[in-house]
């Protein structure tokens, strides 16, 4: 197996990662997770609350493809076969027992231990910023893992979480810190939302991103407190359990005073110890910037006065920063908004942009109770229960989805979906500064804490919302088709020598050539894989004709491969692929 990265630029923090159990050859298209050295190994998986022992419950091609679109980075023929045999519940259960894939690439904490007066990157070559400060090494790992690692559902949930509790390389640099943050989301994807919020609040990366590190009671910065309430927990309007507005119109969940209360309560944290600069640490008493570990209390900066938080939670005079943090988290988990606010967004990221109120209510109940049909451990915020409730709900599994069902496949899922279906592999490099920027979803570089797109972006011409339409327009509509063209007709990208373990970005059409002598069979095979069903009749006929226009006379010995390219282009550029239902 090819190592993911070269040793010199990889953090050498100890043990080899465990090889991921249960890999199937069909899924192992690039280097496996057990590369040389580097990064923390995944913690052991808590397999309680995963509804173990479910029997097989075979299902249809269409249902299997839908579940693959909802819970993985896109169907492959092997994955669809597995889901068809196991059925949704067992597949979800199995997915929750797999160890987490990791982010390993990129530089170490040396960027925050640099005490020489010369620039850190002096003498470290042209790729210093990329490898030590940027999120590009994470992007490589993300795409490699998304295309090939078996913990697909965990990775999808982590992708959803990072679009809610956003940090962005646009404003925070330090590869090792970003790596810690995103490994945390992978590790906690099937944990508990309260713990996720706790890790997010104490993350020094988040502390820098939203200004809560070294936040001083003398004049507290409100940035983190406001976004914690607005984006990470409860939103701005009071909600019923089904996600609708309480009272039918927006009643604010908090005012400026409450934001300030939370800002004061969250003062008094500094970076963990371990960093160093040529000039010492500033302000006095604080630690130098450092991203390994959680933030630590800085009592001199913490406001200890009594506070009244939301949901009836209060803080007494003389309390500590640690106690204040727990009270903040208690207040958010007790608030009636959190379950529908977070639950609905997770539904939008995995299944459909416009869930029915009843669906939201069922998911909110799973979040609150911590249980769903054998999944979960009974504590509010249980992610296993919530994710199972989302994917196994009748609305997600219905063979006859409503007219409002579905979502626009976001660009990241377009990239991985086509690569996975067509036997492709990638080192991620072409999917960042090129295609990621082109389609406005450059992983780890969200334009702001509000993510690449808002959850309520209106879908013009309908009463619905379409979040991913917030970055979709005439330009990106054409570029989606151009991306497929790039893969199937222009042979993608070759390896770039400056990328460790480079393989480029390419599909492998050979497995489909066997069916190319019969255009109809080829088109149907690709449609069944990509869409779960054949194309509508008129479009199917036109696609078959287009495929058949490559003949020995027109294109010579390559005509069968060209037919596969033609069929793949049309199926994957089709609107029926771009919108999942």
């Amino acid at each position, binding site marked *: 197996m090819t190592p993911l990265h070269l040793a010199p630029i990889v953090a050498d923090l100890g043990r080899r990662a465990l090889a991921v159990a249960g890999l199937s050859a069909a899924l192992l298209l690039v280097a496996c997770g057990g590369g040389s050295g580097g990064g923390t190994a995944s913690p052991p998986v808590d397999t309680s609350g995963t509804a173990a022992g479910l029997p097989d419950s075979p299902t249809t091609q269409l249902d299997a493809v839908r579940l693959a679109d909802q819970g993985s980075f896109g169907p492959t023929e092997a994955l669809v076969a597995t889901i068809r045999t196991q059925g949704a519940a067992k597949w979800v259960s199995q997915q929750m027992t797999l160890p987490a894939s990791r982010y390993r690439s990129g530089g170490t904490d040396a960027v925050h231990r640099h005490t020489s007066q010369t620039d850190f990157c002096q003498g470290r070559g042209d790729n210093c910023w990329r490898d030590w400060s940027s999120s590009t090494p994470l992007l490589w790992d993300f795409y490699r893992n998304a295309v090939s690692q078996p913990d697909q559902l965990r990775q999808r949930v982590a992708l959803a979480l990072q679009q809610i509790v956003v940090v962005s390389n646009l404003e925070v640099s330090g590869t090792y810190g970003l790596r810690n943050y995103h490994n945390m989301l992978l590790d906690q994807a099937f944990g508990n939302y309260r713990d996720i919020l706790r890790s997010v609040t104490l993350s020094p990366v988040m502390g820098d991103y939203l200004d809560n590190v070294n936040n001083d009671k003398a004049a507290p*910065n*409100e940035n983190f407190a406001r976004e914690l309430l607005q984006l990470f927990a409860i939103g701005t*309007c009071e909600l019923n359990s089904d996600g609708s507005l309480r009272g039918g119109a927006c*009643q604010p969940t908090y005012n*400026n005073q409450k934001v300030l209360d939370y800002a004061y309560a969250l003062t008094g944290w500094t970076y963990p110890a371990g960093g160093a600069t040529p000039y010492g640490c500033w302000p006095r008493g604080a630690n130098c910037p450092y991203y390994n570990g959680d933030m630590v209390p800085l009592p001199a900066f913490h406001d200890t006065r009594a506070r009244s938080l939301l949901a009836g939670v209060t803080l007494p005079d003389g309390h500590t920063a640690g106690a204040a943090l727990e009270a903040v988290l208690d207040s958010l988990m007790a608030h009636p908004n959190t379950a529908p606010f977070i639950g609905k967004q997770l539904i939008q990221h995995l299944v459909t942009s416009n869930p029915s109120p009843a669906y939201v209510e069922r998911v909110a109940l799973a979040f609150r109770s911590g249980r769903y049909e054998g999944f979960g451990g009974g504590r509010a915020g249980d992610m296993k229960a919530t994710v199972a409730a989302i994917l196994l709900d009748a609305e997600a599994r219905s063979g006859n989805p409503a007219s409002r069902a579905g979502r626009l496949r976001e660009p990241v899922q377009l990239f991985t979906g086509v690569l996975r279906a067509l036997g492709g592999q990638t080192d991620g490099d072409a999917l960042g500064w090129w295609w990621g920027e082109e389609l406005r979803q450059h992983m780890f570089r969200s334009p*702001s804490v509000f993510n690449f797109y808002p959850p309520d972006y209106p879908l013009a011409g309908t009463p619905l919302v379409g979040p991913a339409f917030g970055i979709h327009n005439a330009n990106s509509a054409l570029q989606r088709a151009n991306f497929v063209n790039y893969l199937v007709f222009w042979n993608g990208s070759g390896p770039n020598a400056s990328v460790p373990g480079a393989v480029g970005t390419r599909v492998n059409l050979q497995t489909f050539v066997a069916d190319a002598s019969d255009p109809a069979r080829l088109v149907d095979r690709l449609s069944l894989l990509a869409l779960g069903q054949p194309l509508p009749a008129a479009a199917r006929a036109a*696609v078959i004709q287009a495929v058949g226009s490559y003949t020995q006379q027109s294109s010579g010995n390559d005509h069968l491969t060209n037919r596969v390219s033609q069929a793949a282009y049309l199926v994957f550029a089709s609107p029926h692929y771009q919108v999942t239902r």
Partner: protein
Amino acid sequence: MKHQPHAVEQALFNRRRWLQFSGSTLAGALGVSGLSALNQTPANAQSGYRALVCVFLYGGNDGCNTVIPTDTTRYNQYAAVRGAMALPRSSLVNLSGSDHGLHPSLSALAPAWAAGDLAPVFNVGPLFAPLSKAEYRSLPASDARIPQSLFSHSDQQVLWESASSRVTERTGWGGRAAATLGTTNPVISVGGNGRFGLSALQTPLVLPEPGGTFGLNGLQNPTWAPEVERRRALEALYAGSDGNAVLNAYMAQQRDALDMSARLGALVAVRPGDQAGSLLDAAFAPITTDGRVNTPIGRQLYQVAKLVQGHVTVQGSRQIFFAQQGGYDTHSGQIAGTSLDGDHFRLLKALGDAMACFYNAMRAIGMGDSVTLFTQSDFGRTFKPNNSSGTDHAWGNHQLVLGGAVNGGTTYGTAPTLVIGGPDDVGQDPWELQGRWIPTTSVDQYAATLLGWLGASPAQLDTILPNLRNFGSATNLGFLSA
């Protein structure tokens, strides 16, 4: 919020139906546009071309440091509260005759002021109706007279872009204006989607940067059978409709995209240096290096300039554009050491230079009086800084309008009283003394002035801006000549 169906919008709806039934053909996409037959004359009878260019400053621009009072009393009030964040009076770009100056980074706009083509508009923000401090403090937050979700980025962006006081508004005032006026094209955005250009039925036309591909690859050959058949099959895939609403909307947008790319692809692709002797290139030369405009906002305004210059190709005699610059959420690092450095300094430099180049470009091509540029932003920022060399979210903010039609050389709106806890500050309690101004001019009034110049009648203004009637006769702030 719903507005009454308008005759022109009804006609537009029928146009979209026509496109769906007939199917937009790719043959049309490669050749002459099929949309020329659908030219609509604007409701207003004025002749000639007029365009509005919105520049949205995402994050909340600190207006207090953008337009600064220079008379001794108020400058001293400003300096006393702003402390290290205050700009030295000697550094300001003097707006002679107005007792105000601009942030030094906006020095490129000094000639526009001298020519009478630039004007600040003070303390603009989302309102339902005129609102006093007493009302703000006594009314419950859920009262209709208090705009929703104040101080929240995403919601205030919605309120500004939609000229609404309710965060559930789905359309933008630019989009509603384009629909009501029956402009040939929807809002054209060079700065991403946003909400501004959305109407009930249409999305804005979002274009890429100069040089960007705006078309489908691999379909250029009109005679080779595999490519001909590929085009035909794509057409078949995009045609028709489906029972699924999301898929339907996607397909409709795809068809529009193909039509637009045919008409505009070549124009969009032109970069600085592609056309010898280009007047636009000369105007943008100060911010161009090696054939590329240096800043994102510069590139966007270059693109707008091209589309204005090429308005015959773009079609339509009335056009609304949307551009944006991000990064204004300066909670920290707004200044660095002194106020003559830091994030805000750099942001305004990029903005001012790009605006000045655009202004010069419009004058160079004889369109100076035809194009008006105006700023918007999520909100202003706290008059009193925080302890992180930054400022926090506020409300009313100062905007700039620029163009030959501007009645410049003077200021508009009412500047706030620069007293923490004073009559214009939302705050009164000890914990809320940061200087967040209650707007004295609403987004509706600001938009109505701009749209009235564009050609909207009073009845059309009431359709586009439903809260405008709450401001009585004050629907034209006067900063644009007729």
